[in-house]
């Protein structure tokens, strides 16, 4: 009876995983299709991979996606860690008020975050551009005349990066926060008593203690950035596009099977990274086990 139930639950899980992975598997299979259909197999070929590497707009969008995700993760992880340490040494009431604001981008629908940032950028740039168009001055330095003008600003990579950092920091704070709460406050005091500067205490005591939280925060931030479409769509303007925006644009006409190829490549990279990480972790665990026994 018990065994039967176990088989049933395993079967249920297998079905759900099939549901989750069927579309990805299909993409992988049809990336090697000779024809341009996503439903009819016409033989094996690498033509879509070839086409992909010559497609400037898709490769450019992949580069943009990775760059914005990596930069946003880096900035958000550093800023979020400092912010979390700061927030958790505040009085409870003030901290909770600030954490409530911190939660806004996470609870709001993506479209609201995207639209609101879009409004802000457009309004600020509108004022700035008017100012920049009207004010220019010349500077006479050692006989050479420099004409100084202010650049016109528009939505682009910078605004998209700001948006990504903004929605990533809350996740970092959320995963670093609990580690800070668990940490023994006396540790820092002890370090200070033993002559550590407070920056030294931060790097030598707090940082090692909350490291797991920082790593998982960075991982979540990167995942959110890579998976994002809506917020990028509203804040990137027309000059740059991420891979998701590229696909969304294609969907109006016809989506090229090159998309299958790039998805497959990205998926394989993720799998490889994951396998690498897991192997390293289990090695470390085994080493730790050997040390204790």
């Amino acid at each position, binding site marked *: 009876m018990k065994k039967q139930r176990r088989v049933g639950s395993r079967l249920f899980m297998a079905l759900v995983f099939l549901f989750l992975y069927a579309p990805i598997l299909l993409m992988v299979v049809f990336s090697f299709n000779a024809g341009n259909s996503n439903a009819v197999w016409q033989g094996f070929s690498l033509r879509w991979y070839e086409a992909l590497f010559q497609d400037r707009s898709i490769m450019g969008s992949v580069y943009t996606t990775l760059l914005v995700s990596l930069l946003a993760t880096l900035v958000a992880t550093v800023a979020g860690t400092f912010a979390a340490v700061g927030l958790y040494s505040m009085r409870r009431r003030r901290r909770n008020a600030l954490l409530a604001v911190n939660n806004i981008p996470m609870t709001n629908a993506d479209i609201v975050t995207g639209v609101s940032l879009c409004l802000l950028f457009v309004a600020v740039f509108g004022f700035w551009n008017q100012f920049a168009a009207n004010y220019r001055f010349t500077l006479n330095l050692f006989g050479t005349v420099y004409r100084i003008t202010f650049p016109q600003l528009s939505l682009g990579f910078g605004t998209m990066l700001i948006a990504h950092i903004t929605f990533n920091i809350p996740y970092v704070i959320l995963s670093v926060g609990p580690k800070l709460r668990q940490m023994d406050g006396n540790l820092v005091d002890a370090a200070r008593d033993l002559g550590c500067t407070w920056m030294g205490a931060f790097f030598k005591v707090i940082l090692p203690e909350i490291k797991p939280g920082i790593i998982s925060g960075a991982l979540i931030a990167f995942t959110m950035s890579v998976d994002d479409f809506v917020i990028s769509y509203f804040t990137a303007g027309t000059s740059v596009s991420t891979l998701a925006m590229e696909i*969304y644009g294609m969907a109006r006409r016809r989506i090229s099977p090159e998309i299958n190829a790039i998805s497959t490549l990205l998926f394989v990279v993720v799998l490889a990274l994951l396998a690498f990480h897991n192997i390293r972790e289990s090695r470390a665990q085994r080493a730790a086990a050997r040390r204790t026994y």
Partner: protein
Amino acid sequence: MKHKRSLLALPYVGWMALFVVAPIVMVVVYAFTTAGFEPTASNFTGMGTYVSIFARSFQLALIATVICLLIGYPISYVMAKEGPGFQRVATVLIMLPMWVNFLLRTYSWMAILENNGLLNQLFDAIGLFDLINGLFGTDLTYFRMIRTQGAVVLGMVYNYLPFMILPIYSVILKLDRSLLEAAQDLGANSAYVFRRVIFPLSLPGVLSGVTMVFVPSVSTFAISRLLGGGTHMMLGDLIEQQFLGGAYNPHLGSAIALVMMLIVIVCMWVMNRFGQGEEQAVVL
């Protein structure tokens, strides 16, 4: 010294003021003004024409959330009972699809659901259409699946299911085993233990899962565009059109976004109250 350390949060407080609070203030300002920035409430009073879109969005998002819960809860429950090695692999497998951008995965569903797509081919191959045609005298050659509301719900369930599973799973995993043993010792059978102990204690996870599925579902526009074929307008489509689409009117768009935000906040607040009540009842 502790005060000195709290200064570390200062830059981020400034950042939040600039990029979290100010943008929302902008939305509110736009929602209550005309194109010439004269104060008005007409953005809200004229919203009656969109009632059907509001209704459809909330209906589809609700259906998707319920389906996610019906699949996600048992999965989390079963997963929490497995060994640690199995659990680690399963968690990774659930998170893994998120690293392939959700539009890519949704795009793959388009090929599956097409009239001459893989699923219809499969149905044809197993003789489903012949069977139905023989039974009912119809001449079906395919099921119309794409460009229907069902396809949109499927897309939502597919994309947001992990957001339902992970929070519920982590709550069930952290349940105090001794509570379950105590209940069993006091003579409760396993169904009773589930109903009176496990389920109430896992409600916080359920609530956060429901939020994490419902909010993106109700505001989606990419899924409804790709799988719904743009024929079933949803709130997200409506807002998107006011900002980047043909019907450019950011003031109306802000008003709709604001209303959507408020409805969602009210729903969450009501649910949270309800959830906390349950939790307290258990403790008492």
